[in-house]
């Protein structure tokens, strides 16, 4: 008996009496041994239907129980809600229908014809992706008719498809390759010449080999529906049909990399990844992205010590299945400008590599000489919660409490969690019908949040209003104003847009974290809260007041209470500990101050540093991050650290020991135990912790808003942190794609 047969016997529900199970003799056919069980075996066989599980764990949600209809897939009854297509019904029934053009997040095109199935009483096979399921429909997916239909479609698709799988980057993860193996014929009858199509230049990210295109139009639909750019389209008819930009034009979307994933063949592939690796030699590590505050779920594909590519991971609550181009293509920055040795600046201003022992001894000596109020610690925008906790603990032991995270401004308020996270949640934005964006440009600050807003605008015609400097959106919006005066008008109810907010069922206000840097931020936030209160934005069942953070470390830093004691501590600092902080303004720092830079890239922060301690990047360490909606997530190490670099928290722990102020933990578990006492929500990984109190408990603010208009928080979408600034691909993108 073969293994397969054994397995199928084990999986099949037992039809025989139980005696044959328990009293099993060592013969292959127990029916022959006992008369009782042989009688049972002769009982009329019921239809052999192995229990089916939905494809990919597909779940169905019945919005309205009366609308459930029953269809039969291969004789197996399934209950589905009305309006589902035949293909979805088959998925629920556990039958995977081959498809090329159908994508669950895009509109239905029905032009590849691969999903043909036989439906009883239908004269022809039907395209299941475009056919709504009707009650009592009898769908047959493995009849000779269906098989022949698929085989024929496959033969037509392969007619004009080049046989260049060995040099194709999609090889190994190609839908056409897989499905032609599974459903195609073993021979073709095509003897003429194959057609060829001119390749299009879509920019520095997407490589096109248009001869391979099978005209599924997934990329066209993605560009128009999700990315919101009208760049791609179909030209021509029949065999002259091709995908392209109408005029020679680059694809200028911050989500353009996703067309690489949705392309079922190798027509659109990643340009930086071209000919670098095969997908079967890569090791995937499921981790999260830190280049913006969204915390997109990604998979880092690495080969040996090298990150080869970054692809998205499905997370319905955060990034669905898309990621931004910055997330996807920043990885070459991880291989450039890396700090790999501890270095000390000599008297003549040159850096010299030293051992960890010497470096830590010097840092500890200087730190212990400085007065407590002269010690300052700044965490960078990519720091993880563990290292920020260690930094804060170390500085507190030295007697200083001047520790903060860059980007949170001079006086961050970490008192109310609702004041700095996205209370509606990213997926909750889909319920909204009016958006008011204050000083934020989600398209560059958080591309995935912008994609969610665009989805909402498309789905339920939500109105979008924007206050801030002129910028381009990929959906209709009203530009209300550029600065705080408009806020005042809205708060006082004088603005015409007030009625739209008041009449909205689920209004959403999104405030940009760029406003944290303003001096009058308390007054601005008070005004925003007044608007929210006036227009009933915060209700028991709906919290529409959101802050959109800018970088990955911010939320965790505020959760951990990284709030500086004094606002101008930099001006009198003698010892500054920069933990990956590159964008902090050090102009006012005294010249005799000693600056320690701990980080992974030789970026802006290095140039003022007296000593460099090399740390690990997000792809090399296990770290906790909180995204802008307050969801805790963890990165996992995909590749080893470079050179002599160490994890951030380990460096600080070692320094504390050298300085004689040993921190009471020496493992990640130890730090997490410490974090539990400060911010227990950071330990509930992959869970979103909502804020407990709304802004109603906030004390009154007596400040006046400055009339200076809001500034844009992100100058260059492609280069926001040390990793992306080191990346060549990002430099190319910003040179070619950003509008001058």
């Amino acid at each position, binding site marked *: 008996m073969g293994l397969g047969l054994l397995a199928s016997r084990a999986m099949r529900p037992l039809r025989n009496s139980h005696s044959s199970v328990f009293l099993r003799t060592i013969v292959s056919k127990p029916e022959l041994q006992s008369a009782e069980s042989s009688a049972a075996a002769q009982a009329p066989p019921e239809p052999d239907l192995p229990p089916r599980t939905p494809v990919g764990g597909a779940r169905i949600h019945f919005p309205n129980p009366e609308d459930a209809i029953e269809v039969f897939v291969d004789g197996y009854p399934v209950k589905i809600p009305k309006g589902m297509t035949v293909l979805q019904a088959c998925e629920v029934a556990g039958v995977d229908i081959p498809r090329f053009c159908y994508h669950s997040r895009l509109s239905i095109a029905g032009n590849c014809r691969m999903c043909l199935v036989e439906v009883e009483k239908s004269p022809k096979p039907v395209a299941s992706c475009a056919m709504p399921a009707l009650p009592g429909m009898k769908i047959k997916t493995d009849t000779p008719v269906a098989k022949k239909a698929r085989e024929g479609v496959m033969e037509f698709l392969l007619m004009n498809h080049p046989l260049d799988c060995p040099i194709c980057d999609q090889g190994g993860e190609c839908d056409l390759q897989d499905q032609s193996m599974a459903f195609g014929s073993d021979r073709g009858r095509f003897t003429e010449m194959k057609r060829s199509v001119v390749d299009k230049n879509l920019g520095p990210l997407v490589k096109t080999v248009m001869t391979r295109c099978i005209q599924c139009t997934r990329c066209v639909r993605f560009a128009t529906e999700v990315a919101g750019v009208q760049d791609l389209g179909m030209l021509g008819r029949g065999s002259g049909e091709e995908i392209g930009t109408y005029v020679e034009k680059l694809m200028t979307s911050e989500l353009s990399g996703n067309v690489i994933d949705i392309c079922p063949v190798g027509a659109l592939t990643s340009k930086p990844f071209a000919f670098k690796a095969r997908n079967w030699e890569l090791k995937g590590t499921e981790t999260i992205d830190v280049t913006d505050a969204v915390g997109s779920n990604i998979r880092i594909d690495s080969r*040996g*010590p*090298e990150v080869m590519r970054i692809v998205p991971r499905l997370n319905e609550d955060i990034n669905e299945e898309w990621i931004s181009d910055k997330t996807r293509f920043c990885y070459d920055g*991880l*291989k*450039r*400008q*890396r*700090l*790999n*040795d501890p*270095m000390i600046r000599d008297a*003549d*201003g*040159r*850096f010299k590599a030293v051992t960890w022992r010497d470096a830590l001894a010097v840092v500890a000596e200087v730190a212990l000489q400085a007065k407590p109020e002269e010690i300052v610690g700044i965490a960078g925008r990519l720091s993880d919660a563990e290292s920020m906790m260690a930094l804060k603990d170390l500085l507190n032991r030295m007697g200083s409490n001047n520790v903060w995270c860059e980007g949170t401004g001079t006086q961050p308020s970490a008192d109310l969690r609702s004041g700095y996270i996205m209370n509606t949640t990213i997926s909750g934005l889909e319920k909204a019908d009016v958006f008011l964006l204050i000083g934020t440009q989600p398209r560059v600050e958080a591309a995935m949040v912008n994609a969610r807003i665009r989805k909402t605008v498309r789905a339920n015609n939500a109105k979008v209003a924007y206050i801030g400097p002129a910028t381009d959106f990929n959906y209709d919006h009203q530009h209300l104003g550029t600065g705080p005066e408009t806020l005042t008008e809205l708060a006082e109810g004088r603005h015409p847009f007030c009625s739209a907010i008041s009449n909205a069922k689920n209004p959403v206000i999104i405030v940009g974290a760029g406003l944290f840097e303003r001096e009058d931020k308390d007054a601005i936030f008070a005004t925003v809260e007044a608007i929210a209160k006036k227009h009933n934005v915060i209700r028991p069942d709906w919290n529409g007041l959101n802050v959109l953070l800018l970088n990955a470390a911010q939320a965790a830093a505020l959760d951990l209470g990284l709030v500086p004691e004094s606002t101008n501590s930099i001006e009198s600092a003698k010892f500054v500990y920069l933990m990956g902080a590159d964008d902090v303004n050090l102009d006012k720092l005294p010249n005799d101050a000693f600056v320690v830079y701990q980080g992974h*890239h*030789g970026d802006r922060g*290095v*140039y003022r540093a007296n000593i460099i301690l090399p740390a690990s990047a997000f792809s090399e360490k296990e770290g906790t991050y909180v995204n802008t909606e307050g969801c805790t997530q963890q990165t996992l190490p995909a590749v080893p650290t*470079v*050179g002599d670099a160490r994890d951030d928290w380990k460096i600080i722990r070692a320094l504390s020991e050298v300085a004689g102020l040993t921190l009471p933990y020496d493992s990640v578990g130890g730090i997490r135990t410490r974090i539990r006492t400060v911010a227990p929500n950071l330990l509930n990984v992959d869970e979103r912790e909502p804020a407990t109190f709304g802004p109603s408990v906030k004390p009154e603010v007596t400040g006046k808003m400055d009339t200076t208009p809001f500034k844009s928080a992100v100058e260059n979408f492609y280069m926001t942190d040390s990793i992306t600034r080191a990346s060549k691909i990002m430099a190319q993108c910003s040179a070619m794609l950003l509008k001058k």
Partner: protein
Amino acid sequence: MAMKSALKAIRERGLGTFFRELKEEGFLRALLDGNLMSLSLLLQTKLHNRGATLVGVDKFGNKYYEKLEGTQFGRHRWVEYAEKSRYNASQVPAEWHGWLHFITDHTGDELLMLKPKRYGVEHKENLSGEGEEYIYHSKGHALNPWQRDWSRYQPWQPTKTE
């Protein structure tokens, strides 16, 4: 024994010829060295080669002899190394190896035609013990002066600032 056969050679071929041959072989240099051992070895070789046919000379100057009559079968091919003092078997290049070890009857000169032009590397003797700089080191070996760099990242280069 050696003396006796040397005398025999002188008697057979005349003193002049004998000395000319010895001179060619660097005998006098060996004599000046005072190294009697190498002197006697040289003489022995010289005498052994008598009556043998010189089949070929490779590019290092090693001479390959064959003598079919009067020798034991299996000892009828031999090499006289160009290097008289520090010779070793690895000085025989690949093309002559087969002939010398009775693997083939093709001489090295014939087999040289088969050597691939594009990628056939020059023969190199085994230099173990001659010093680290002479020995072969793999591309990743720390002593290889052209050691390959496998690091997959580019480190930040400190530049003088301010």
